[in-house]
């Protein structure tokens, strides 16, 4: 029940294909102009930069409007009235999101997205304040449970209604806080979260089967990838802990708080999930699922030593780098030897203009981020000092040896 309707979504998808194919030279300019005229949906969209800025300023407006309304209540605190106002604001924001879509026909425009996101925030705040008011609040876990449940349900609805993938991600994050209400066992909490995601995964996989080449396949693709990642993160005990970084660095295992059978079952699962996700991604030719499969495979390699309690070696990243590069080279060579550079429907060649844009954007972002790696650090004065510091340029290559 998308707010835009299937026809409009398909039209928008067709326009994206046309733009991509024209950029790659598969359509000439005259063809592109003609076919673009035949794919008019009446929706108004904008580019990613204006979308982000419009999202930002809409949040500023919503936040300041809430502040103006709440200021008198904050002077004479009345939690029930504050809670009611939060809920009213949630309803107004949601109505605003629906309104700008139905009236102004905005599509991924930033404004309707900010309204929708704000409605989730206000609803959670309203429930939280309502439960904490009058001194008759239930235990903190129950408050957290209700806030998380409401947040998850509304986020799911927004994803369903507006097709915003990050709303689904928000729902997944809310789900993380649900099990604390049912059990204090960390093992059980991991299992419950993983079970939620697994059920979602099964539901999405079932729903996708009837949408092989339509717009919903694209939407479900990202959601399925997020769920695969969620299941993996929930079962990998080395990643879903608060002291993640020190543990990974020292190579110590997170076994103390879990029973041994549970610990080793999760270790086995961390090795089982990547090939399953990768196989599914490859069979469906699903870019997001393949990407997540590759990411969790790397995460399994990275977290294996901490799992087993083995010490880290300084050359471990080198071995990982060699493995990643070797895999990439092997796949490229294997694909290139196929007829026309294609094997089993896969190619290593670029066939979309989007890929070049992604690569160019990635290189520019690296250009902005890389200076962190070359931060000038005070150099040791003593010649006895080890190989320390290093600010001779080069992302990732020179700091804090």
């Amino acid at each position, binding site marked *: 029940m998308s707010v835009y309707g299937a*026809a409009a979504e398909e*039209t928008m998808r067709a326009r994206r*294909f046309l733009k991509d*194919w024209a950029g790659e030279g*598969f359509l000439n300019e005259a063809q592109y102009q003609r076919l673009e005229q035949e794919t008019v949906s009446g929706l108004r969209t904008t580019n990613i930069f*204006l979308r982000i*800025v*419009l999202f930002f*300023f*809409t949040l*500023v*407006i919503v936040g*300041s409007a809430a*502040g*103006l309304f709440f200021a008198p209540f904050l002077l004479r605190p009345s939690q029930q009235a504050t809670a009611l106002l939060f809920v009213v604001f949630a309803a107004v924001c949601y109505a605003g999101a629906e309104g700008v879509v139905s009236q102004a026909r905005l599509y991924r*425009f930033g*404004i309707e997205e900010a309204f929708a996101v704000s409605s989730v925030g206000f609803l959670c705040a309203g429930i939280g304040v309502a439960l904490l008011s009058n001194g008759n609040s239930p235990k903190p876990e129950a408050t957290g449970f209700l806030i998380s449940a409401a947040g998850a349900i509304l986020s799911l609805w927004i994803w369903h209604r507006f097709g915003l993938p990050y709303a689904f991600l928000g729902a997944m994050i809310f789900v993380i806080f649900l099990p604390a209400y049912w059990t204090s066992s960390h093992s059980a909490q991991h299992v419950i979260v993983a079970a939620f995601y697994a059920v979602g995964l099964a539901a999405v996989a079932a729903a996708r089967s009837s949408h092989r080449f339509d717009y919903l396949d694209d939407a479900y693709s990202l959601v399925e990838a997020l769920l695969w990642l969620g299941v993996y993160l929930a079962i990998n005990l080395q990643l879903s802990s608060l002291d993640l970084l020190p543990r990974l660095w020292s190579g110590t295992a997170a076994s103390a708080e879990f029973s041994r059978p549970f610990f080793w079952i999760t270790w086995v699962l961390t090795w089982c999930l990547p090939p399953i996700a990768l196989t599914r991604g490859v069979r469906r030719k699903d870019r997001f699922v393949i990407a997540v499969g590759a990411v969790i495979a790397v995460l399994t390699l990275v977290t294996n030593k901490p799992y087993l309690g083995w010490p880290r070696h*300084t050359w471990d990243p*080198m*071995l*990982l*780098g*060699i*493995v*990643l*590069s070797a895999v*990439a080279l092997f796949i*490229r060579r294997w694909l290139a030897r196929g007829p026309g550079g294609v094997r089993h*429907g896969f*190619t*290593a*060649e670029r066939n*979309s203009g989007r*890929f070049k844009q*992604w690569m*160019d954007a990635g*290189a*520019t972002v*690296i*250009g*902005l*981020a890389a*200076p962190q*790696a*070359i*931060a000038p650090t005070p*150099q040791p004065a003593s010649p006895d000092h*080890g*190989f*320390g*510091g*290093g*600010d*001779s*340029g*080069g992302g*990732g*290559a*020179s700091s804090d*040896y």
Partner: protein
Amino acid sequence: MTILARLEQWKEQGALSAEQHAQLSGLACGEPFSLFVELNVLLYAGVLAFVGGLGWTVSTWSRQIGDVLVLAVLTAILGACFWYCFSRAAAWCPAATSSPSLVFDYVLYLGSLTWSVEIAYIENRFHLLSGQWDLYLLATTGLFFFLAYRFDNRFVLSLALSSLAGWFGLTISRWPRHEDATYRQYAVLYSLVVGLGGTLLRQRGWKPHFFNTYLNVVANVLFWALLSGVFQHEGYGIWFLALLLACGLSLAWGLTQRQFAFVAYAAVYGYIGVSSLLLRHVTDSNGVFAYFEITGVAMLLMLVLIARRFGRQA
């Protein structure tokens, strides 16, 4: 109507040839499915992990391994990478050129990062330039710019711009919490030098497609520097005027060139700068909320107008 149905319809209408229809239908169904991006990301991550481990190993075990062996290994990697690149690359051309192979860019990137490791090791162990790291950074910057332009490589261009920023004593991502006039001046100077250099190279027709990378780096560094000046409690007037000027230029460039990142920079950085100045002495919360409400609506209207003017109905 799905894209496949549309393609069928367009073929029947004669808008597409049969060959185009077959090709585009295949692409819409992921046939063939390109792993181009995935392989590039794997190679990039592989190079980064390898060099990270190399630096870690060298720094940890250099005494046990010995300087000769460390330098021999680093030099061998460096030599092999640069030999590969110089022997495989086509003759230099000022226009955009594609890489001879998928791995070429990453071999060059590996060589560049290994150079950084080796230079850092040499100076730390032998103090050839008596700890004058600026000279190493300058030499590294020169080398990276040369390699970026010789092999048309944006990754190495990014490294060159980063190294130049390091030479200026600037690290964008570690911008100091407490404003430092020296850092600010260096940042502005860096922006001017990079912007001017990029413009000159573009005018000469040398890799004009790099210009956008220059501009994005320049815009962000410059806006951060100007904003830090505006945030000062004294002497902020000149920085505020400079910020307004920069916002105007960024907006004009973004609109005329249809590069909306620069419109976004102008809107966000400008709004933050103006707001910080106007709200500096406002303590009334209602006044602050009213300010954000009114100015937020004004900014939103302006941006919607821009989006309507330059966007298209889809």
